[in-house]
Structures are given as C-alpha cells and as structure tokens.
C-alpha cells in the first residue's frame, strides 16, 4: 500500500498494543484481522483527504499560524519567568500620564437620580438603592409593595414600588441597607473588582 504499514503500526502503538498473533485463537485472529482492515481503511481515508487539501493548497496559512503559535509560546515562557518584572499590580503604579489613583475612585459628582453628591467609587451601590434596584432593595420593596397594594386597595395613592419615588417609606428602606453596604464595602481591600 502506498500508505504503508508504518501508519498502521503507529496507530496500533497509539491506540492499543499490537496483538501477538501467536497466542490468539483463530477466532481472535480473525477479529484482529478485520479490525486491522477497518483501521487501515480509516487511516487511508484521512490520508487521502489530507493529501487533497495539501496538494491543492487548501491548507490555510500554515506559516502564519505557526508563527503566531511560536510567539505565544515564547510569550508564555517570558511571562512565567519570575525574574522578568512582567506586570506590576495596576493599583499601585503610576499610569502612563504620570498619575496615581487611590483604590477607591474619589471623584465626587451629583447622583442623577437623587441629586446627592456621591463618591465615584461608591456610586454603584448608592445608585442601586437609590433606584430601588438590586436584590436587597428588591426583596424589601416587594414586601413593602404588597403593603402598598393593600394600602392602595384601601384608597391610598402612595406606591412604594416606584424606584424614583422620594417617599419616606423608600428612604427608610434605603438607610438600613445603605449603611450595611457601606460596611461591607469598606471591609474590602484594593483588590475589589
């Protein structure tokens, strides 16, 4: 065969040990023979397909691909080497513009929802409560909204489920959870995501 026994031997070594024909029963020999034929057929199929791809130049830009692989492998080696300074932890360095920044962003601006001045690094937790979103606010809001629905059905116009409401009921919920969140947050170090 023009795809010689080397292929089969290799496949044999890779998949299972080449059977020792002397020790086998005729039945086993026959099965082994059939298996060998099937394996040969599959190997030739693959080889024929690859031959066409290679001969017609359909295989992609192998050189470029290999170059990329080589560069990546090299990069990993360089980066893994502890003697290379590599990346410095972004939180403690000077950026390219010569600036340093605190762990928690300290720019202050007004919240677009309630108008209060908020520190940038704590804006998201503030906004969550301010808008009445989030798990904690939501679960509390549900409880109060049920109460509000009851109230409403009794004729009260107040709805505690509105996220933009400035009603006192929302404020009470917010205060409780807000301070809780502040505690959580200040517990963390600069590693916070």
């Amino acid at each position, binding site marked *: *065969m*023009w795809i010689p026994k080397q292929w089969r031997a290799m496949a044999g070594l890779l998949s299972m040990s080449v059977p020792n024909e002397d020790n086998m029963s005729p039945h086993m020999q026959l099965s082994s023979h059939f298996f060998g034929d099937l394996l*040969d057929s599959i190997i*030739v*199929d693959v080889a*024929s*397909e690859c*031959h*066409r*791809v290679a*001969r*017609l*130049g*359909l295989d*992609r*830009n192998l050189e*470029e691909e290999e170059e*990329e*692989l080589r*560069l*990546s*492998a090299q*990069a*990993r080696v*360089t980066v*893994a080497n502890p003697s290379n300074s*590599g*990346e*410095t932890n*972004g*939180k403690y360095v000077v*950026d*390219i*513009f010569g*600036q340093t*920044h605190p762990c928690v*962003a300290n*720019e202050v*601006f007004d*919240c*677009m*929802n309630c108008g209060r001045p908020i520190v*940038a*690094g*704590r*804006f*998201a*937790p*503030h*906004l*969550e409560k301010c*808008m009445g*979103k*989030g*798990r904690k606010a939501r679960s509390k809001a549900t409880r109060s909204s049920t109460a509000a629905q009851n109230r409403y059905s009794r004729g009260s116009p107040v709805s505690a489920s509105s996220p933009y409401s400035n009603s006192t009921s929302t404020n009470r919920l917010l205060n409780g959870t807000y301070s809780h*969140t502040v505690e959580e*947050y200040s517990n963390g170090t600069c*590693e*916070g*995501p």
Partner: protein
Amino acid sequence: MATRNSDFANPKPCEHLADYKLRHGLSGYKSIQKWLKASPYGKTSIKMCETNMPICRFCSGFHQGRLFLCLICSSLSCSDHTLLHTQSENGHDIAVDIERSELYCSLCSDQVYDPDFDKVVVSKNIMDMPSKTHDSVVDDLMRRSSKRKRLNPLMDLDLKRSKLLVSMMDRRAKSCYPLGLRGLNNLGSTCFMNSVLQALLHAPPFRNYFLSERHDPETCKKRSSGQLCLACDFGVIFSALYSGDRTPYSPAQFLYSWWQHSANLASYEQQDAHEFFISVLDGIHEREGKERNSNKDVFCVDNGGCQCIAHRVFSGMLRSDVTCTTCGFTSTTYDPCVDISLNMDTTNFSSVNVANKSVREDTGRSTLLACLDLFTRPERLGSDQKLYCQNCQEKRDSLKQMSIKRLPLVLSLHIKRFEHSSLRRSSRKIDWYLQFPFSLDMTPYLSPSIVRNRFGNRVFGFESDKPDISSEFEIFAVVTHSGMLDSGHYVTYLRLQNQWYKCDDAWVTEVDERIVRAAQCYMIFYVQKMLYCKANED
C-alpha cells in the same frame, strides 16, 4: 500566497494523467458517473453492483486493502495489484479509488487531481440531492468566489472629519499618547462595564461614527421625547475620552442609563462582561431599530439589514445546515449575530493524577483556531434530538454544521470559560490558557469553505478563489478575566498605533505584547484589516 491559489483551480497533472486525458478525454469519467454515490456524511463512493462485493481481479479478495477501478476497462485491482494491471494492459494507468472517488495514478503510486473529474463528481452529487436541498447548497458550490462583496459604506466613514475633530480637541493631551486613551473609574464592581467600554471606545468604525457626530444629541428623537438614549450617552463618553483630559473618567451617567434600559441586570454586584456587551448593543440598536424597521427582529439576509450603528459595525450572519443522515436532505437557516460564543475544546486536555486527585491538565494545545474548528465542525445530533426531515417526512438523526455567511466589520469572539457539571450540579471556570493570534484569517470558517469541504473539497475549475481581504482581521482589544466564576476582575488590553496598553479601570499603562499574548482571554475583538490599517494611519 501565490502557490496556494494557482494550485487550487489548476492542479498540475502528472504526465500519465495528461496522457490519459489526451487520449480519452472525459469519456472514462462519464462512464463511471452512474456508479457514483454520495453519502449524507459527504463521502462519494463508487458502487457498481448492489449484490456482489467488489474484489480484486488478480487476487480475488485474498489481499484486500483499497480497490481501484480502471478508467479504461473498468477492472478492479487492489492496491497491491494496480501496478500489475498497468503492466499487463498498456496505458491503463489511471484508476479511481472506489472508497472516496479519487483519481489514482498507478505508475506514480499517488493520488492525482483533475478539475474535470471533480466537476463530474459534483454534478452527480447535485443530481442526486433531494430536490429541496438544491438551491442554497448548490448556489454556494457554484458561486464564483470572485464575486465582489458589497463594500460597506461605513468603510469610508467620514474619517477626514473625525481626524479633524480629534486634532482640534487636542489641548491638554499628553501628546505622545494616542487620543482617546483614558482610564475609567470603577464605580463599585463595575470593571465588567469598564472593560467592555474600553473595547467599544476603540473599535475603529464605531469610534469614527461617534467622533464624527453622526449621532447628534440635538436631533436625537428619543432624547427629545424624553426617553433615554444609550447612543447619546455613548456620544458623551466619546467626547470625554477624546477631549484630551487624561484624568480617569467616571461613566456614571452611562451606568444610570444602562440600568434603566436593562432593569434585570441593574444591581450592585459582579456581572458578566459579555452579558453587558450584548445588552449595550441591544440598547443602541433600539434607538434606530424601532424607528427604521417595523419589526425589531427583521434582518435582511444579504442586503445590510438593520442600519443602526451597533449592527452596522458588529452584526454578521451565521449559517446553520442540518443534514438528514438517512437521505442527505439539507435544510439551511440564517441567523444574525453580533458576536460568536465559542466553546473550549475540553477533550484536548488529558487527565493526570496529582496527589490522588484526578486533575485535568492543559496540554498547551488549546487555541482560538481550534475553538473555531469546533464551532464549524459537523455535529452529530443525538438520537434524543431527532429533527424532522422534509424529505423523509419523519424525524431522523441529523448532522448540524455551523458556518459564517457574512463577517461583521468588527468580529467579537467570546470564549465560554465555564463548565457545567450535571453530576455536581455546579459550574466552574475553565482557567486554561487559550492561544489567540493577533492576525486572523476567517476564510476557512466561511460558508463557502465549509460547504466545499463537505463536498470533498472538489475543484470546479472556474472558481478563482482569490483570497478575500475582507476575511482578514487584526486584533485591537482583548478583555481578560482573572479570578473565579463568581468573583474576579476584568482588564482590557488595547492595541493602538502598534503599542499595547493595559486598561485596568483608572490605570492605563503600557505593556509589552508578550504580556497580552500570555493573558487569559475572555473576549477578543478583531477588526477588518483594511479598517485597522486605515485607523493606524492617523
């Protein structure tokens, strides 16, 4: 590559094949055409007789192996005896491998190629196809690849005007660094947002659109009617980033707008960057989608589709072919997409025993191209997933294969780094390294390549198959994730003017490209090479 393309359409025949063609022309090919039979799996074989097994004329099946059918006298010889045949019958050099319908030259002992033969094979394949399959698949096979793709008008997107605007804004800029490079403050677990924003802010066509003020807040319909408009908010961020001010910017207004848009994602907790990306594009789409298209989900197959900036830049089209394994009938559907989510090939990883625990180790061969191969590989749908075949009129086992019908200007690839274990009913993050290239050629994953491969990569002779430059991409941003599934940190690496920058919330630093290559990628952004080169000329 010159050699590659000239070989494809006109493979050079060996002297024996050339000789055979001179004497016999196409008669031999045509005579065996009636015996060609294609399987739904894509292999074309030669079946001469329904009842008898084909055997070698010389050894009568004693030494089987491969069988070759002589094109002149139709006698069968096994691989050991093809030489015997050609020696006994002068000129009977060319045969056909009956398993795969490939030409074989007995004197060269090699597989040879002839576009005329391939044409005969493909013609038979088409003739045999269940009637309804005919259109889409055949069109793809026969389509001339030299058909020029319609140039997206965004390519000439007002670059002059945006360049002018950019230079005018350059007041306080530390001028040696590219404009638009600016840190984003973390507002409280918002690194998922900052990382994606950085990538979007530096996507060339997207950036050019906003910098040339194509979306004017003054004339914005949504805004004037009091509705929120994420595109307007984006415009604000662009102006801020390109203003020349280098102190970190707080995208607070954007967060506020986005939370109003995506109520279900509005919470102070760690979120997924990819989810944010999809949500933001959806938000921008709504701005124009509802105005221009009556049905938000209408996407024209070939002619542009939705014209909002999000789709014009990010939207591509995926093709899905489902083939019935019984009759070969293939049904094709097209779906638009703004990104491609790729599974990691976890079968590449071997198990090793470390301290009595079976640990899966990264063999170091996991690559982005392998993920793309996996994405476009024919997938056997299990017997519990039988699909209805229109031809057979009942549910059958099928094969499904994905391919890319149309590439977007900006290709966003999302690596699904999670693994779900139904046993433990838990998910975990796949931390393994994934190699990704800086230059990416998407040609092998396009529908024409995939369909052609399904038909045995036959040559049609009239296909010019010049490499289409719009399939070549260059990387410009990588979003990386470090940490666990539930908690971690996102960082974006940007490539501007051939220099890589690390954008870690407020901190922007220069990094060597090797750091980027070795990083654990989560989302990778590529832009069409032409646009990348143009952007770098600035």
